[in-house]
């Protein structure tokens, strides 16, 4: 099967392309920069240039669509151009080329209205309720894609939650960098349970969705490790893996939510960096519970995660060259956080 993977230069995109190629499919990737994945054919281009998209889609049996504007900053128009219009372009090209299968990689934030999530399954995407340009445009894109689902173009949506792993420039790199410079506050008591997804698990889930699309098309699936942890433990796990002292100072969660701008200032990167601050959305994400019911996902995709959180932290430590810290994740050590309270 010839599979087009869009957005394969990011951490998850690379892992997905590698997984699918490993399963002896003919993989082509589409993004602005080389994917760096061996055994695949890179087609460079932009989602905002329809001829680029049409050229990439041509001849594909299936598409795995990861390309998106994911940054936390930018204007509404910038997000819409890539995420919504890009999806429209892709769907048109897929229809034109007679592509049979489409896996859309989305985010649980498309159905998230700022409250906690405790053991919910995927709810319908809700652009009106979604917080921030990213979530709103992804919600619109998801609805567009699902409305295009048909016997000829089978569409399935996979929503991995909080993907992290070696080479992650989004969450892990930011957390580690801020912790290194002593600028990583904890929000609230840090006990809110957050489920996350180790990158390899997200990749195998997406591959499973591709393989099962004939039976699961038209549906959305949240994908996680199924191991909710207090947010403070999750962040500390990343810091320790990177050999950095975990955060120990706290900002009341209520204040963080109430004054998104204040917390944005605390989380701001070095001046001049184009990357965004901590937004109110992220403040909510990190101070209220976010964990999901994975039963339907696992049963219908015929998939389950193979890398546990602790194994993920160990692999992250290896990547950072801090294998010494790995025993913490295996059998505990004295290195730990002060209890918050």
């Amino acid at each position, binding site marked *: 099967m010839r599979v087009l993977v869009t957005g394969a230069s990011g951490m998850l995109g690379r892992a997905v392309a590698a997984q699918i190629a490993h399963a002896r499919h003919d993989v082509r990737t589409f993004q602005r920069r080389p994917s760096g994945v061996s055994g695949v054919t890179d087609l460079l281009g932009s989602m905002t240039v329809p001829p680029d998209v049409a050229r990439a889609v041509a001849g594909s049996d299936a598409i795995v669509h990861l390309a998106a504007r994911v940054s936390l900053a930018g204007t509404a128009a910038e997000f819409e151009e890539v995420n919504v219009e890009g999806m429209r372009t892709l769907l048109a090209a897929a229809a034109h080329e007679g592509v049979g299968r489409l896996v859309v990689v989305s985010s649980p934030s498309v159905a998230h209205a700022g409250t906690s999530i405790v053991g919910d399954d995927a709810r319908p995407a809700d652009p009106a309720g979604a917080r921030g340009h990213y979530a709103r445009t992804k919600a619109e894109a998801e609805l567009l894609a699902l409305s295009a689902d048909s016997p000829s173009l089978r569409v399935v949506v996979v929503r991995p939650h909080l993907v992290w792993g070696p080479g992650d420039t989004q969450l892990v790199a930011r957390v580690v960098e801020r912790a290194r410079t002593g600028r990583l506050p904890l929000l609230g008591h840090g006990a809110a349970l957050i489920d996350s997804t180790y990158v390899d698990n997200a990749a195998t889930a997406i591959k499973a969705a591709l393989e099962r699309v004939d039976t699961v098309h038209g549906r959305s699936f949240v994908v996680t490790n199924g191991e909710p942890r207090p947010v403070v433990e999750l962040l500390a796990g990343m810091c320790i893996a990177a050999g950095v002292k975990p955060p120990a100072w706290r900002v009341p969660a209520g204040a963080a939510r109430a004054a998104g701008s204040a917390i944005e200032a605390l989380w701001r990167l070095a001046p001049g960096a184009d990357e965004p601050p901590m937004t109110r959305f992220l403040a909510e994400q990190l101070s209220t519970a976010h964990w999901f019911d994975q039963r339907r996902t696992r049963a219908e995709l015929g998939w389950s995660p193979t890398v546990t959180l602790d194994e993920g932290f160990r692999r992250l430590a290896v990547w950072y060259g801090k294998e010494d810290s790995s025993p913490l994740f295996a059998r505990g050590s004295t290195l*730990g956080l002060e*209890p918050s309270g």
Partner: protein
Amino acid sequence: MRYRLPLAASAASLPPADLPGLDPAHSRLIDVPESGTTGARKWHLLDNAATLSAIGAAPVGTILCVHGNPTWSYLWRRLVSRATDAATAGEEAWRVIAVDQLDMGYSERTGQRRPLARRVRDLSDLTDALALDGPVVTFGHDWGGVVSLGWAVDHPESLAGVMLLNTAVHQPEDTPIPAPLRLALRPSVLGAATVATPAFLETTLALAHPPLQQEVKDAYRAPYRDASRRGGIGAFVADIPVDANHESAAELERIAEGIRELKLPTLLLWGPRDPIFSDRYLDDLIDRMPHADVHRFEGAGHLLAEDVDYSAAALAWVRDREEDPADGTPPATTEAASPPLWHYLDELGDSSDIALIEMAPRSGGAPRRVSWRSLSGRVRQIAAGLASIGVEKGDRVSLLVPPGADLTAVLYACLRIGAIVVVADAGLGLKGLTRAVRGARPDYVIGAPPGLAAARVLGWPGIRISTARYRATAAAALQVSHSLAELVELGRGAPLPPAPTTQDTAAVLFTSGSTGPAKGVVYTHAQLSAVRDALAAQYGVGVGTGLVAGFAPFALLGPALGARSITPDMNVTSPKSLTAASVAAAVAEAGDGSVVFLSPAALANVVATTDALTRTDRKRLGGVRTFLSAGAPVAEVLLAAAAELMPMAIPHTPYGMTEALLIADITLDGIREAASAEANAAGGVCVGAAIGTTRIRISALDDTGNATGEPSAAPGVTGEIVISAPHLKNHYDRLSLTDRESRRGTPLGERWHRTGDVGHLDASGRLWVEGRLGHLIGTADGVVTPVGPEQRIETIAEVARAAVVGIGPWGTSHLVAVVETVPAARRVSLASMALAAGVRGSVPLSVAAVLVVPRLPTDIRHNSKIDRAALAVWAGAILEGGRMTRP
């Protein structure tokens, strides 16, 4: 009542089609010829007959529902729907007819007064018009209950059973009618309260617990929107016979007496929070229909039909009647009769040996020693005294006397004359105790001063007898009718009434209430004798044994065992107050070969206070033959520490509950042996093998955490622990539904009990307790029981105690460990990474979070049971991002 109410005539109609929960398909209007006249009346009723016919379901019977005042057939909407749904689902089909009485709801406004006798005839006219024949089960609420009973009395040929929600059929002459009705009945108030304004209607609608939703209230109001529609409400109130001259008094009396002859299955569902029909009216109904199945829904009130799921209960009950026409109460034991509980008081009645010793009598001073002769005589005198003031077999006597010689004497006196003793533990707290005493409706209360003061202030029912002598003024203030001393005087030389039979009810013992409201557990004399026999056989207690009772319930059984009971110096309401030195002093009185009964909390304090022991004390403790820690499992290390203190004694921990005081037993050696054997993965606390006369089965859990498996002795299966024994309770008091659930799926004709505990049997027949049914955790990987993981976590040096709870929805829940640490934490926090890693490493399950607390909340009575359900709610709130409060 001669008040003339405005009664306007108007036609019947159908209710609006959009009332919540009411299916318009079940509404119909019917013309009914009126007996005694040439006219006809138009009725509105709910009737699922057409629906049943449409789905081809042939009804096995009809439930005829009659609402009270000021409601209408809307009250029964859930029963109509549920019965129809059940029939649609292929279950047994029941036709349900719920009428709007004439002048009420959407039935015709007749413009004529309809006293009770007329209303009873009206209902007959309707069933004639419907050509309704049997079997019919009537179901009434409030004054509709009286009308339905009137129909029942008049139609024995079609009647199959009777069901009632809060109803009264008789007003005792010596008590005033309920205050709300008294007020409404004043001529100056009646018209205004019931007709001109909707005050009576609104007051009734405000009685629901929890409050009714606005739309439901509006539905109740719908047929009574203006004064011309409310004439029937006023007429109904005016028809309450306030005295014997009232025109409806004779008909009410006819019905009230007529139901005594109804020997048919009867179900009384009751909401005790009812300002109108209080428990006293339930008592009256039980008195008239003693075979009735009774269930009191603690916390529910007059609008029981709105407060609880009465419809499921009623349907299940009528189905049971179909399957098993005999009364649902299981047969009492027919095992070989064992001597009565008081037989040693007769046999040793001339002995000067010591029967009871109070090491620290409340009166102060030296230990109080009571010989068998003295105890026997006192019991006889009190028994005869009680009889002489009118206490009869079957009367309920609530004992609010602290453990000690007085309580023992009163207890055996009551047993001897067949009075039913009601015993509730002060550990329930005043609120729980009040609820228990009110629910048990004692005829008499025998109390010490604090108990009587509480009885007075809280308005507990019953004639009051004091253990202390009061001055007349104080006695009057406390409404005390008699003192124990008076009874003794009265009983001196007076004859004793005949003894009760082994099948008569002996006692109502209340559960601890650590899981929901305390339940009254009913024992017959045979069953209590069996409790004694089980203890005697298991621990070799008999004549000559010294029994040191650091756990109050066992002190009471001493005389029944023929043993000498010694109550050590302790505050009986606080087991923690027992010291090692007090035990040693009590053992000295008990003599060698004594048996020491302790609670887990008492045991812990005894071990903690050994430093104060003298060499003599230690020598005395060396003479103990057996000691028990009863009430809850104890850690091996604690039992071992106590064993060092009593080196010649075999340490035991029995497993039991209020419903069956002794089920299994294990010794310290047994615990060690079990620990070395590999249990199944679920783990748990090994409580040993069943004692001689007990059978233990396991009803396996399904994926939803319900124990649906057929009870089996197969090893290695986790499920609800189900037991049978001669000394098992007879039933729960006035909790017919709870009783039914406790026997669900067990062999008919045998007495079995579902314990609510979860565990498994091992290949050697030992029982392992894994937790409570209500504390199961439904993870995506299956059902997890808490005790096994807790024990593994407690092996971590830093952890003193652990509770494992589930958070999130059933089926996708995650485990959370809540731990007490060594040293104890001062505040609630997340565990350190190291402790969390240690906890996760100790259990083969995924643990989402570890919370540290200064102290896990623990119940008063056992000082050891953790309410994991409440803890789960607390942990869930924190881990959702809520404030870090204390549990």
